[in-house]
């Protein structure tokens, strides 16, 4: 009888200790520094907890302050027209590009998708800019679901800027320009000319640019890009 009572007492004591241990653990877990999603890496899932190591983990450092809401540019800032090429990520369409694309569409062509899954859209819009016809070149990724361009550049569609080596065109260059039906107009920059042609065909624009790159006596030829407040 005494032995059974002793066994029962010991059993009760053991259960009591186990409960007490459990309670202490729970207190420590919950009351001292109960982990939250914000300040600990402890997972919510208890199964995962069992497999956790006992190593000390540190929360990742904050690399920099988050952008503040009032740091957004206000209406005076127009964003840049000329977007950098980062990767195959969509770029934000600038206000100026939107404005250009709200003009009358004169000509639009789409290329085939290349081996990198990228295709281009070449569009000429009539705008109220100083040079009315604007060529917009946009690259799209066939994999990008949003349909946003991954690169976009706008430029005058009816002329290129050419820098002549000796300041003025020689007979050979003049002949090459005449064959391409190009009119030259000097700018304020010594040796820099506006080489004008029909500005309604995006492919003609590129063919002319290619032809000019092979013309004799030219330092460079490049598009007259649209710039905007940045």
């Amino acid at each position, binding site marked *: 009888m005494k032995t059974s009572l002793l066994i029962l007492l010991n059993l009760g004591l053991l259960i009591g200790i186990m409960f007490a241990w459990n309670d202490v653990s729970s207190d420590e877990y919950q009351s001292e520094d109960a982990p939250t999603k914000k300040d600990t890496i402890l997972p919510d899932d208890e199964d995962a907890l069992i497999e956790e190591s006992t190593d000390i983990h540190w929360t990742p450092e904050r690399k920099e302050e988050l952008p503040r809401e009032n740091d957004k540019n206000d209406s005076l800032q127009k964003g840049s027209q000329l977007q950098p090429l980062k990767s195959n990520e969509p770029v934000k369409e600038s206000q100026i590009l939107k404005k250009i694309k709200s003009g009358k569409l004169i000509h639009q062509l789409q290329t085939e998708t290349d081996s990198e899954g990228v295709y281009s859209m070449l569009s000429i819009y009539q705008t109220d800019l100083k040079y009315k016809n604007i060529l917009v070149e946009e690259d799209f990724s066939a994999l990008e679901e949003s349909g946003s361009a991954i690169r976009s550049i706008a430029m005058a569609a009816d002329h290129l800027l050419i820098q002549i080596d000796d300041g003025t065109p020689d007979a050979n260059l003049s002949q090459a320009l005449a064959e391409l039906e190009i009119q030259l107009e000097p700018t304020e920059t010594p040796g820099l000319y506006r080489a004008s042609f029909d500005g309604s065909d995006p*492919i003609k624009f590129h063919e002319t640019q290619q032809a000019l790159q092979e013309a004799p006596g030219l330092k460079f030829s490049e598009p007259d890009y649209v710039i905007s407040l940045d």
Partner: protein
Amino acid sequence: MVSKVSKFVSLSIYFSLILDIQAQELPNDSLVQMQWHLQKIGAFTAWESQKDCDVKIAVLDTGIDHQHLDLKNNLSEDHYDFVNKNEIAQDDHGHGTFVAGLIGAEANNAKGVAGICWRAQISSFKVLNRNGAGFTSDAAQAIIAAANSGHEILNASFGHSPINGQIYNQSTLQALQYAESRGVLFVNAAGNSNLDLNRLNTRKMIVTYARRGRRLVRQVRYVDSQPIIPSNVILVGATTKEDQRSSFSNYGNKIVPIAAPGSQMISTTLGGGYGSSQGTSFSAPLVSGSLALIWTKHPEYNFTQTKNALYQIAENPEVKTIKHQTSRTFVGWAKRGRRWVAVYKTTTKEIEVSSKPLQGFFIGGKRLDLKGL
């Protein structure tokens, strides 16, 4: 008790700052106390030794409101409108007027705002239309024209976002090199795309298009290319009241050597009024005005010495921030239903970290400061 002491200390610091400001020469312009950037860059201190600018500054922008009462006395006679081809170059957008006010709104005239230069000679070279758009050919021409007409500092905010890894296209670059040969400084906004300009593509991508029968194909080839920035060009990033990089500002110490306040700026607006705006467009004019002050004080300097003097007195602000570090230690095992789970004790410590917020974004973390002028 502790809070009373800290309040007393805070009030003491506050009043000593107020007295410090009052001891300096403050212009009587009604909005000058709201122009936080003046105090931040040490303009009040700088004005004790130099407040007028005897250097011609050209603003290549959307034009300037010539009738604005806070600007008209500080405008030169040299203006040109490359968009509409006239010599008026009146603003029809507002951006150029805002920029001009930051450089040289007439100070101490009991009106509106104060520019960095109390008296100035600002010219309007309009290259952007009423929508804030223009062409690189006009920008290049304006740079040449401004340099040829005796302007020593050119301020520009127009887009120079990277084209094939370059900040500037060839025509603009050529014009900038011409300005460099004439000893003219070109101060340019770094841009508002939150881009690291150090990471510009070094491979130039050339895209051409060609017809192959009925097909239209896109051809891409790459050429090695490094960004070229002439020595007379200063690209300016934007900072906040807290000396942090403004979230929109482009950065990258190889390209953007200095930053200046560009958030919550107050300046002149089109139609004779005043307003608030932000962007690196409004950091650049603070640098232009500061260069004009330095150059006026040291007329013997060439553009390199003027630029270096600006970098030399620029500050590297240090900001204390609180970082939270959380650690956890294994305590033991506990039963949850049928499972045993590991129990951890987590502790979070607050650590004061001293950081130079501009480090990594700008050379030496430089922010425009004129106190050493």
